[in-house]
């Protein structure tokens, strides 16, 4: 396991450096001068220009420039945003928690609803139920997420007026950001209205989270179903039945833990599309996260914001996928066989 962890850490570092390399190549291709693309200052003074040249080693070879770029980015210097003139890293620190909050709520929703439904559909022998679940999940998988978001806004936000359609919190509430996660901030804030603020934040997150949860939900249902069907046909399940164990116990103790492994693996593979969807959902619901910030960055041709946003989101994905892989290997001894036996 120790060797495995070191190899994964290696992979994380190698992938991150490759990613920064791609971004470095992109900066020299942006249709602006290199100093603007790197630091975000449109008309630098003489001292600033000298500083940028020194920081990014613009007079040395390509390799030297790349190492300087790597150093600057890893030390947290992402340049300043051309449009707002604030350091990109500070803006990122404000936006990132909102995105993580949305993603977490959506994943929890998808897992809490998807796993039981998948198990139920695996247990049912009714052809009609099975077919309808297949069609419903395929439909959910095929819905363009922007269209789903707009339709939800139209129905639940405007026609029925049940839920707020944009933002994270009503502007009436003044909540001091502590953790950046609005649901937590409103709960721990000492304002006299913090309970109603929490409920308001909860109302705001419902529609974006549901829109985002549709894709992982359908995937979880399908994978749980197929894994569960496969596990239930194994002989150890029949042995458990022969011993007279109650069905509930067989499913909860013997079948489900094994069926959840492929779900975990699939979740790791799905992170990329999931993140793409999160960006679109943030734009539609004006959610103040990295995605909408990144898209407004591209509209304003704010090259430092684009680099910073892509770097943050991709690092998040790489980290999460490696984390999932590590968890998968830790809980599944069978997958460790491959580590030792090379073919």
């Amino acid at each position, binding site marked *: 396991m120790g060797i495995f962890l070191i190899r994964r850490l290696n*992979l994380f570092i*190698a*992938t991150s450096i*490759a*990613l920064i390399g*791609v*971004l470095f190549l*992109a900066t020299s*291709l*942006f*249709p602006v001068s290199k100093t603007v693309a790197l630091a975000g200052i449109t008309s630098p003074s003489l001292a600033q220009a000298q500083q940028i040249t020194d920081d990014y080693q613009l007079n040395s070879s390509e390799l030297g420039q790349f190492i300087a770029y790597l150093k600057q980015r890893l030390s947290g210097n992402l340049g300043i945003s051309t449009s707002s003139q604030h350091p990109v890293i500070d803006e990122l620190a404000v936006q990132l928690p909102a995105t993580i909050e949305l993603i977490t709520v959506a994943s929890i929703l998808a897992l809490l609803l998807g796993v039981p439904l998948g198990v139920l559909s695996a247990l049912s022998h009714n052809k009609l139920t099975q*077919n309808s679940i*297949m*069609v419903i999940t*395929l*439909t959910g*998988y*095929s*819905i*363009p*997420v*922007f*269209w789903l978001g*707009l*339709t939800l*806004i*139209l129905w639940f936000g*405007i026609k029925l007026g049940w839920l707020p359609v944009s933002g994270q919190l009503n502007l009436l509430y003044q909540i001091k950001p502590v953790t950046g996660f609005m649901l937590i901030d409103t709960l721990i804030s000492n304002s006299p209205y913090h309970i109603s603020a929490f409920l308001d934040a909860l109302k705001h997150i419902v529609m974006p989270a549901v829109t985002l949860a549709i894709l992982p939900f359908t995937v979880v249902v399908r994978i749980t179903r197929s894994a569960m069907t496969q596990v239930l046909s194994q002989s150890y399940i029949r042995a458990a039945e022969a011993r007279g164990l109650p069905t509930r116990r067989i499913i909860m103790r013997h079948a489900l833990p094994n069926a959840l492994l492929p779900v975990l693996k699939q979740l790791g593979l799905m*992170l*990329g*599309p999931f*993140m*793409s969807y999160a*960006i*679109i959902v943030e*734009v539609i619901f004006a959610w103040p996260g990295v995605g909408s910030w*990144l*898209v407004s960055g*591209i509209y304003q*041709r704010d*090259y430092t914001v*684009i680099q910073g946003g*892509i770097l943050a*989101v*991709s690092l998040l*994905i*790489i980290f999460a*996928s490696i984390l999932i892989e590590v968890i998968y290997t830790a809980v599944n001894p069978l997958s460790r066989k491959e580590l030792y036996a090379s*073919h």
Partner: protein
Amino acid sequence: MPAIKIYQEEHIPSPRRKLWLSFSSNFVALIGLWVVGLLLLLTILGPFIAPYSPEFQDPNALLLPPSWDHLGSVSHFLGTDDLGRDIFSRLLHGAHLTFGMALAIVATALLTGFIIGSISGMMTGLKASILGHMLDSLLSIPSLLLAILVVAITGPGLENVFWAVGLALTPQFIRAIHQAVHDELQKEYVTAARLDGATSLQIFWHVVMPNVWEIIIIQTTLAISAAILDIAALGFLSLGAQAPSPEWGAMVGQGLDNLLTAPWAVTIPGLAILVSVLAINLVGDGLSAALTPIRS
């Protein structure tokens, strides 16, 4: 009346025939196949049967609802948008932008992925491992971020979507084909062929490939549906197809301004995307269900 068996021997259907029998017994997948066929026809014939040109603006019919609404008219079957453009004609003209381009992108990505994936799959050792790591890093950049990067470099436009989505899809093909070839190579029938003196090229084409085609087919259907969704999403964010273009996602984006007064300008193109992606997914699902019993 049951058919009388004259001959003793049993007729055994060929694998391809078996696949078709198993696929066509799935009613839902068959519907999907029909819809895909229809979409292909519309992609080719759409511009010829559309009643209006996609940019034609009818000043007397602004924001006309679809014809089944009591305010609608049959001359604009699916209604018009805020500039009086006929939505039905725009959908027909947009079919080759959204659906046709998805096919073109997937074909390109498939070809590239097939060449690189099969070469790397036949290789072993360090080279294969380095390639695997590089693919992992490319796979970790979601298609939308890749598209944002491409747009930042070259500016928005439909041809940039081609590069962005293609770049995002190719690693998936390489990886799937690499993995499939690599897995097949471990099996004993390959060793048997090698002992018979087959060269690497013969092993690849005559021994390994027949077992890999199925995986490629499934991967291709998945990729087409992903490509359609990506093209539409980029059009919606106006990073791909630009404003007057009848690309379906861009149409949703253009209808956004009048979401409250004319929801059909958003709903109908969205439904078109949904139906085409759903049809492809149904076919892909039916294919993989039909292939599984043959494989195992």
